[in-house]
């Protein structure tokens, strides 16, 4: 704990980052119920109203919908998807990467080849093509596809973490008392690799937000009127001159959340990985 505090003091940016993350988490959990406007409510007397007018804290879009409500509600879907995605891909990655790295040999070679193949398509392209071909996406398909797209990367991290422990003698010691593979993988090795894996999960979290936002921007994300931050940006790009807030605030929301999580992940890696 003292160490954490010491590192935190030398990386003071972690404090605003934590505040931002907490803010968005809070927004996602209790925010929507406390909004003055529903995220779909059309206030036709206030179309493209500047921030502050008509009780619209961040202004409205072309349909008179409250930007602030939409951003707050949007935090819910983006955080849900990103959280699930990072958890799923990490879970799948750990299982795959551990199995391959642990058994080595042909299984590993096959795994590496498969991962090579999977990683040959950038995750964004993969998700875009699949979502595009599927045509319509919802939280479930989006989560599933982004998770799959990210699994190879996390599997590699997990495999690397396992390999760094696999040849340490305590694993041999466990073998020599006849432990099962599962026990060795998950009881002996996993606790010692949890550091880099947690760092990976948080980094993946930031990437997932970027990915979901980018997919929304490309128009293959969630369906309107669900307020997807990336979609809000592209939706309102037309009125960037008339109502810049409609583009600016969602962009800021994405930027603040992703940067905060990246800072947090960076900080975590400094805490967890003991060097320097």
């Amino acid at each position, binding site marked *: 704990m003292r160490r954490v505090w010491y590192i935190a003091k030398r990386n003071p*940016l972690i404090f605003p980052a934590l505040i931002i993350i907490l803010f968005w988490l809070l927004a996602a959990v209790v925010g929507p119920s406390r909004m003055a406007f529903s995220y779909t409510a059309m206030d036709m007397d206030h179309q493209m109203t500047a921030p502050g007018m008509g009780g619209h804290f961040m202004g409205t879009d072309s349909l008179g919908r409250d930007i602030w409500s939409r951003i707050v509600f949007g935090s819910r879907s983006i955080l849900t998807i990103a959280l699930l995605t990072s958890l799923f891909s990490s879970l799948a990655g750990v299982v795959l990467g551990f199995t391959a790295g642990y058994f080595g040999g042909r299984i590993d070679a096959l795994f590496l*080849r498969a991962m*090579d*193949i999977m*990683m*040959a*398509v*950038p*995750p*964004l*392209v993969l998700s*875009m*093509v*699949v979502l*595009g*071909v*599927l*045509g319509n996406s919802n939280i479930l398909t989006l989560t599933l596809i982004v998770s799959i797209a990210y699994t190879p990367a996390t599997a590699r991290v997990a495999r690397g973490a396992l390999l760094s422990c696999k040849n340490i003698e305590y694993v041999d010691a466990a073998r020599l008392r006849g432990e099962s593979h599962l026990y060795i993988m998950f009881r002996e090795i996993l606790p010692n690799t949890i550091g880099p894996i947690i760092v990976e999960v948080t980094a993946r979290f*930031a990437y997932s937000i*970027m990915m979901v*936002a*980018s997919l929304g*921007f*490309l*128009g*293959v994300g969630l369906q309107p009127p669900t307020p997807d931050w*990336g979609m809000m*940006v*592209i939706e309102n*790009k037309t009125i*960037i*001159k008339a109502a*810049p807030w409609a*583009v600016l605030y969602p*962009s800021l929301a*994405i*930027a603040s959340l*992703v*940067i905060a*999580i*990246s*800072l947090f992940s*960076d900080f975590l890696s400094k805490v967890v990985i003991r060097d*320097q």
Partner: protein
Amino acid sequence: MTFFRPFLKRLGGMAITLVAMSILIFLLVELMPGDAAQRVLGQSATPQAVAALRESMGLNDPVWVRYGRWASGMLRGDLGTSLYMRGVPIASIFWRKVGNSLVLAMLALLFYVPLSIVFGVLAGVKAGKLTDSIISFFGLATMALPEFVSGIILMTVFAVKLAWFPITSVIPIGESVWNNLDILILPALSITFVMFGYVSRMQRSSMISVMNSDYIRSAVLKGMPMRKVIFRHALKNALLPTITIIGMNMGWLFGGLIVVETLFGFPGLGSLTMSAVKTQDTPLIEVCALFITAVFVVSTAITDLLYGFLNPRIRYPGGS
């Protein structure tokens, strides 16, 4: 012969990856819901028309026959014809767009590689100091911003407010991208933003780990001046992982191109892929996805070879 062996081995690996990937892409796209012939003709088409088109498109053949036909076409350089624009050979659109994207990618590389290496090295050497904190935060922030956010910021500042560069990257008819290099700047900068953070952070950490190594200690304790230590002893080793990262991320770069090209309306591979996806032009999707894969595979292979070439430990396998 021994010199070529890693090369040949790589080539084999590449081929396997590409074949596997092509099968995957083909199956993924072809087995998706929806009938291509129906898609061509629209919902109101008569069943006879659809059947006739199915036959003429060869859609009634088993899937492996179709794959074989498609793959052998690819090998012969025949990219097939667009589904959406009937009768238009994909090759007639595709290579031009690829060329444009490559120019864009190269320009982005030209921007971000030297920038991120210089700043990464600087941050690494000054690790823990203010310079490092500033560079690191800037790197993290730019890396964390999705391309379209940084792109919109750049667009608002440089195109809308200052009007230094065009907002959209359209090439006038009859001209090539080379006469219109100004349209490349903002898209290239957007890519630079993202890649800068990534590469400079890599460079920083590899610089730090090299600076902490025994041989740097040797160099310092040999009385080498700091300049020599950094540029002669450290940089050469610290660049190796960076080069790998840059090469490995060529694929990512192309992923980023989709967003950036869409944002700026740049007529490249990214916007082509995007429009192929939007119009569900399956043959075009397949070609685009396969090409992006190939870029990744080839650049990875080149990186590997380059890495081997730059790293004496691989170039001259050990004597002991």
